Each structure stands twice: as structure tokens, then as C-alpha cells.
């Protein structure tokens, strides 16, 4: 009886004959084990039973957990609702200024989310512009520290995420369906409720969950605005400062649980529950006419208000960055920028730029290698590799940073305080995104094209270099840009890893904001945004129209 030669033994034999692929596979295994699996194990081992007991007996931790749940649910709810209305207005009405609304919703991606916290303090904080105005004119003492402020800030910082997720879903709904429903007599709110909302619901739920887990583990804004309203991520920070890695690990694990749950839900439930719309050929140039004039006006006003809020964050930050001391001395100055951006003693923005570029480059390269070997090669342990490559997407940045600091602060792999560890942390967060994106493109490249290359004498490395790379160029650049922007703005992921020598801009904004040196915080924020925009401009110049960076 002849048996099919398959299974891990055969796969291994084939791999051993292809040394270039073997090297890629082995490197991937070693890297992912070392920086994804091993830190997870260390965190679990570090947590220990006494620390779990402490966590559940001391009321301040229970309170922090409750606060975290409450504040992130509230913020996620409002961000999702606002995101939905904003997206609906752009995609379902004939209001003017759609392009403007799209661009404004994209702006917050250019700045770290802690900048929203900073702007909030500049407007509504104790010394904030609006607080002072209320105090001097009405004698009213505005106090939004704690839950109210945090709620507002997180809603605004994460509204773009909700907006983008929901837009993708709304765009996927064929206008034919609504037109068909209208043809059958549905109109107004009934049409919206029975067709549009129903079809968009899986995406809306997804947006809510995404925002919730992001808020759940966010560090910067809760620390700046939370005041006595303490959250888990802030408590973790405190325990790390107090050199209590055990307690920090316990709370880290608690942060991870809902994130993993959502991740699992997205993969299992939502993918099955989404509606497969069965329609004929899309009719081009078909426009929905589903909203009344009154609704249009209301939606337009809503979107204007949202954009005013977003723009005011940028305006106030820029005003603080370019005046001596805004509110007290409004004279124009470049001193703040000179002091904290273009000074060799404060290299935060330059550090951000260098580390982000290196990390984004590595993330995309590694994502590409993983996508290649997992999609095109056969070897034992493939599913484990795929799992550990995607896993970091589900891990909150705060946890990734925590896990790395706990795992690499001692022993033979003492990486604490090195720039390498910062690069790795950023890379872990972005590599899964690149890996997934490139995998999707890979699936669109016909396998026979690679076979043709092999057939003409190219080995896997040559095929990768001459055929696969160039064909994936668009996806690769898009992912590089995305990773770069995320790296520039990350705070939670790297807050535990930075050292005085390797301070990055987002941390610098946070530090200056915490100590009340607002003009410096604002100046670093402006410098950071300038560096991001400048780099994007250069990338755009290099690739011209071949690559679409901004998809409005």
C-alpha cells in the first residue's frame, strides 16, 4: 500500500533541501518565541499567587479595575455613536464639505493620543484657556479631572478609529439594497433601522469593541487627566516604578484577558455573523437618496461640531507651541521649538523619527518574510508560527511593554535600557498588521507566477526578491507608512522601556504635560507632527502616484 508522503516529517525533509527557506523559518521561530511567547511565560510566572491575592484583597486595585471597565465602556459607546453618525453623514447624504470632514477625521492619526489629553488640559485644565475665562467672567470653577474629562478625551482620541471601522462597513453596503428597500416602500427611519443599521451592525459592534480594548489599556490620558480616578494601566506604571513586577504582571494579565476575548470574538463570531450581501453587478454612479433635507442639515451641523472639537485640539496646541506663554504672554516665539525639538540636549523628536523608521522597516520586512513562508512553504509548526505572529495584535501596548521589561530586565538577555528593546516593542505591535496585510495581498498573487520563476531556475530567495517583493510593493509601502505613523505616536507600548538617553517624543509630551510645562509639551507635539508629515511627504515624493498613502 502506497501512502501519501505528508505530515511533519516529510515537510521537514523538503524544507531541509531548501536552505534559504530554512533560514527564514528558523529565524522567524526563534524571534517570535523569544519576543512573543517567552515574555508571556515570564509574565505569567512573575505574577505568582501572593500577588494575585494582594490584587483581589486590596480595594484600590478592585477600584482601578472597576474604573477601567466603566470609563472604557463609556468612551467606547460615545466614540462609536459619534463615529457612526459622522460616517453616516459622509457616506449617506449629499451634504457639502465631505472631503473636508474626511481629512479632519484623519488628522488625529498624525498625533499621539496623549496630545488630545494635552489639548484638553490646555483648554479645560486648571490653568486652561476656557477654565480661566469661566473663572474670571462667571466665577465658575470648572473641574473635569477624573471620569468626565477622561470620558471626553478618550471619546475624541478614539473617535477616528470608530469612524474608520464603520466607514469601511458602510462603504461595503451596496446602494442597490437601500434602493430596493425604497422601491418596496421603506423610507426614513424605518429604512435606516431595517436595512442600513442592520447591515452595518457587525461593523458597529466591532468598532465598539476595538475602541473599548484600546481605552482599556491606554496609559497616557488616564494618567494626565484621571487624577484620583485611577485606572489599571496607571496602576501598572506605579508598580513598575515601585519595582513590583509581580503585581504589575497580575494587572497586565487582567488587561490582556478582555483584549484576547475581543480578538477571539472578531475571528470567530463576527466573521460568521456578518451578512454576505448577495447583489448583482454594482451599478456605477448610483446615489442613495435616503435622507430628508432636515436630516441632512442636522447631520451637517453635527459633523461641523465634531470637526471644531478636533481642530481646536490642534489649534490650541499650535498656539501654545508658538507663543511665549499662551494666555499670559501671547507674543510669538520659536524658542520652545528651539529648546525641545531642535536642540541636541532634547533629541526626543529625532529619537522618535529614527526608532520609528527602523522599527517600521523591520516590521514590514518581518511581516513579509512571515507572510511568505506561511503562505508558500510547508513546515511543521506552521500554525503555531502563524498564531504567535498574529497574537501581538491582540495584546495591548501597555502589556507588550510590561512583558518585555519583565522578561528582559535581567539574565543573559539584558536588553533593558537599550534602543533595541524600544524598536522591538514597536515592531511587535506593528508586525502583525503588516503580516496580515501582506498575507491578504499574497493570496491575490497567483501561485503559478512564483512557480514560473522557480521553473526558470530561481530559488526561493531569488523568487522573493525579483518577483514577490515588486508585486507586493504597494501593500508593503502602505504598511510601512501605517507602521511608521503608529510608531511615531505610540506611548503605552514604550513607556516602560524608555531611558533618559532614548526618550521619544510621545513620552516627552507626556512628561512635560505632567509637570505643567505646557508650552514645551505643545512644542514637542508640533515637532512630532512636523516630522511625521515631512517623512510622509518624502515617501510620497519617492513613490509618486504608485502608492496611495492617504485614502480619503
Amino acid at each position, binding site marked *: 500500500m502506497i501512502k501519501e508522503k505528508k505530515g511533519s516529517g*516529510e515537510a521537514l525533509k523538503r524544507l531541509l533541501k531548501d536552505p534559504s527557506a530554512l533560514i527564514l523559518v528558523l529565524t522567524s521561530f526563534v524571534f517570535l518565541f523569544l519576543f512573543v511567547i517567552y515574555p508571556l511565560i515570564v509574565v505569567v510566572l512573575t505574577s505568582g499567587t501572593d500577588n494575585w491575592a494582594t490584587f483581589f484583597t486590596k480595594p484600590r486595585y478592585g477600584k482601578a479595575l472597576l474604573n477601567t471597565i466603566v470609563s472604557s465602556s463609556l468612551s467606547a459607546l460615545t466614540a462609536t455613536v459619534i463615529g457612526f453618525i459622522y460616517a453616516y453623514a459622509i457616506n449617506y447624504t449629499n451634504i457639502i464639505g465631505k472631503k473636508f470632514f474626511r481629512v479632519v477625521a484623519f488628522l488625529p492619526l498624525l498625533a499621539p493620543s496623549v496630545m488630545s489629553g494635552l489639548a484638553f488640559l490646555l483648554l479645560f485644565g486648571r490653568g486652561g484657556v476656557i477654565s480661566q475665562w469661566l473663572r474670571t467672567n462667571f466665577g465658575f470653577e470648572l473641574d473635569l479631572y477624573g471620569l468626565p474629562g477622561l470620558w471626553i478625551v478618550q471619546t475624541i482620541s478614539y473617535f477616528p478609529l470608530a469612524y474608520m471601522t464603520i466607514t469601511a462597513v458602510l462603504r461595503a453596503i451596496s446602494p442597490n439594497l437601500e434602493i430596493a428597500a425604497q422601491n418596496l416602500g421603506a423610507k426614513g427611519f424605518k429604512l435606516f433601522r431595517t436595512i442600513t443599521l442592520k447591515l452595518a451592525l457587525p461593523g458597529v459592534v466591532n468598532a465598539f469593541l476595538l475602541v473599548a480594548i484600546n481605552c482599556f489599556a491606554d496609559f497616557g490620558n488616564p494618567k494626565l487627566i484621571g487624577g484620583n480616578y485611577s485606572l489599571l494601566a496607571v496602576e501598572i506604571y506605579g508598580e513598575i516604578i515601585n519595582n513590583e513586577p509581580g503585581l504589575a504582571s497580575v494587572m497586565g494579565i487582567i488587561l490582556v484577558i478582555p483584549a484576547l476575548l475581543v480578538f477571539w470574538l472578531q475571528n470567530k463570531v463576527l466573521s460568521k455573523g456578518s451578512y454576505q450581501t448577495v447583489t448583482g453587478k454594482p451599478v456605477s454612479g448610483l446615489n442613495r437618496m435616503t435622507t430628508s433635507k432636515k436630516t441632512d442639515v442636522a447631520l451637517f451641523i453635527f459633523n461641523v461640531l465634531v470637526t471644531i472639537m478636533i481642530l481646536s485640539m490642534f489649534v490650541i496646541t499650535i498656539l501654545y507651541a508658538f507663543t511665549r506663554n499662551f494666555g499670559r504672554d501671547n507674543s510669538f516665539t520659536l524658542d520652545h521649538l528651539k529648546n525641545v525639538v531642535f536642540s541636541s540636549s532634547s533629541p526626543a523628536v529625532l529619537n522618535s523619527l529614527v526608532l520609528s523608521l527602523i522599527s517600521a522597516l523591520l516590521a514590514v520586512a518581518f511581516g513579509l518574510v512571515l507572510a511568505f513562508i506561511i503562505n508558500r512553504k510547508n513546515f511543521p509548526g506552521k500554525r503555531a508560527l502563524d498564531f504567535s505572529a498574529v497574537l501581538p495584535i491582540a495584546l495591548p501596548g501597555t502589556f507588550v511593554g510590561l512583558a518585555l521589561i519583565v522578561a528582559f530586565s535581567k539574565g543573559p538577555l539584558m536588553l533593558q535600557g537599550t534602543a533595541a528593546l524600544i524598536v522591538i516593542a514597536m515592531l511587535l505591535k506593528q508586525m502583525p498588521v503588516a503580516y496580515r496585510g501582506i498575507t491578504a495581498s499574497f493570496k491575490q498573487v497567483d501561485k503559478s*507566477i512564483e*512557480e*514560473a520563476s522557480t*521553473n*526558470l531556475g530561481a530559488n526561493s530567495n531569488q523568487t522573493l526578491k525579483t518577483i514577490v517583493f515588486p508585486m507586493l510593493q504597494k501593500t508593503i509601502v502602505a504598511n510601512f507608512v501605517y507602521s511608521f505613523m503608529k510608531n511615531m505616536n505610540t506611548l503605552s507600548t514604550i513607556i516602560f522601556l524608555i531611558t533618559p538617553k532614548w526618550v521619544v517624543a510621545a513620552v516627552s509630551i507626556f512628561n512635560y504635560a505632567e509637570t505643567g510645562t505646557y508650552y514645551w509639551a505643545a512644542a514637542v507635539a508640533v515637532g512630532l507632527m512636523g516630522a511625521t508629515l515631512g517623512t510622509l511627504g518624502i515617501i510620497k515624493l519617492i513613490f509618486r502616484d504608485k502608492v496611495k498613502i492617504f485614502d480619503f
Partner: protein
Amino acid sequence: MSAELLLDLKNVNKIFGQNHVLRDVNLKIPKGKFITFLGPSGCGKTTLLRSIAGFYSIDSGEIWMDGKLINDLPPHKRGTPMVFQEYALFPHMTVFDNVAYGLDIQKRPEKEIQERVTEALAKVKLSGLEGRYPHEMSGGQQQRVAMARALVMNSPIMLLDEPLSNLDAKLREEVRVELRNLQQELNLTVIYVTHDQLEALSMSDEIVVFNKGVIDQHGSPHEIYYKPVTQYVADFIGTTNFMEVEVVNVDKGTATIKYGKEGKHATVPTKLDLKVSEKVLLSIRPESIKINAENAQDEFQLTADVRYTSFLGEKERYFVGIENNQEWIVDAYDIGLSGYSGVIRLSVAADKIHLIKK
């Protein structure tokens, strides 16, 4: 003998999960011939081709090429250039770069590459289109680029996987002739996979007919057409009529059979090793049957009634009922304005009757 062999496949087996796709395939492929793997989809023909190219590793058996065992040779070292069904041109490269690719990989000198690519493109009549990209070309032109890309390697062998299936009928006929001419001019060994019997019959030196992972027959187009060894081959290639008959006498090179309700006898040539009273299948091509022939001396006679007809221009096809309610197909050529209807008499010469073992 072995010097003339390019490929020697011994007991090749390939299994995909539950499917035993190739079963003990034994095949010798001589140099300089046009060999066609023919069969319906899922018969194993493409699997065997891809196993030769090294894209599949076989589960047992041996593949010898030029006297070397190549079972474990990775595809990029086999030197078996292939033309893919969907062409698989590199979309980001010009025609020139596509064709030059294999030579670039070999790091040939610039000048040689230039010469060989130009020559290959001339062979497929694409000179002047070097700077185009695949998406700027028609399907037929893309197909030629794919061929040039394989030809330029100067390998003694070329594999083609249903290369014409995406072309329209007229173009297909053109390319068929060109491909055959190229093969003969360059003395290439071509292995050509198709499910199209006309393609197989018109181009090949040898046809290998696949049936569910097994080679049913391997022979010249004429042998395959006129002397199919199994009912499957007879049925798959062209149109044919079957009847079960009994052997009543066996002589050297002939057999006498008893056929029809009346038990008439006919003596026909056969190379089969038959026994008296064995049941065999008789196979007759529609064009071998004469209708209402004057003073027919033919061995085989049968009456039939015309059920319906279909006029195809050069011939008229008759669907006729014979005994036991069986339906046969009979072709009549150049019939002019007259035709047949009602009860007709069919007759077939002894040498047009072919016997197949059951």
C-alpha cells in the same frame, strides 16, 4: 534505446488526501517527440506534468531524466521550462524582462541575453514588442510571451499545461500549427497537457490517455483513434458505437464473432488474445459505416431506423435505433440535398471493425 529516452517514469504514485491521483504510472518519453497527455479534468495528467517539473513530490516511484534520478531535485534545478495555463507572466516586468528572467537568474552576460531574447521573441513572432507590459497585450500575445520565456532557456524539453485553453477557436488553430512547427524545427521534446482530443490528435507524435490516474493507452494518434484498447479510450476520443458480441472462432490474426439478434457471423482482424465464447466489445466509428450501400460485400450488416438527424455542413449525422433499443451514430458525407429516413441498412468493412476486451 536508453540513449534516446529523455524521461523514464517508473511506478509513479501521487496521493492527495483521499485521492490516489496517479497510480503506478510507467512511461517512457523519447527525445525530440511531441507527447500529449490527454484526459478529462481530474485524470492525473496535470499532476504528472507538475511532478515532472518538480512542483509536486511524488509519493513513490522514480523519475529519471537523461539517465539521472531526479525525484529529489528541487524544481529550480530541473531545467524543465513550462508554459502555464494562465501564462503566469510577471506583471511588473516588460516582455523583454519576462523572457530574459531565466537567463538573468543564470547570470548570463548582457550581450548573450540580448541575443537570445531577441531570437526567442522572433521565433514566436513578437519582435518589436519588447518594451510592452503583459497587461498591454492580447491573450494570444501573452501566450506567445509565455512560450518565448520557456524557449529561451534552450532546454531540450518544454512542458505545456493546457496553454491554448484561454484562446478563441481560430487563434487556437493557428498556434497549434506554429507550436508543432517550432517543436520540429528545434527538435524539442514537448510534453503537452490537454483535455481537447482534437489538439492531441492534430499535433502529437504520441498520445498518452489518462483514466483516473492510470495510463489506459500510449500510442500514435492513429493507433489511439482507430485501435483504442479500452472502452474508455474509444469513448473519450471521437465518437464511436459499441456493441457487445461473442467470439465463436479464433484464428491467426482474426476472430469470428457472433452479433445481433439473428446471430450473424463476421470475421474481423484483431491482435487481441481471445478465447472462444468470450464476450468482447465491438467498436465502430460513425464515419466507417455505409448507409444503404449497393451490393455491399461487407462483413457486418445491420438494419436500423433513423430517429433524428443533425446537419453539420460537410456531413450529416444520423442518430439511429438498432436492435435492443440501442442508439448508434452514423455519419454520411457530402450528401447533397437528399438524405436518409425510415429504415436503413448499415454495412461496415471488416477492417473498420475494432474489438476491445471487456
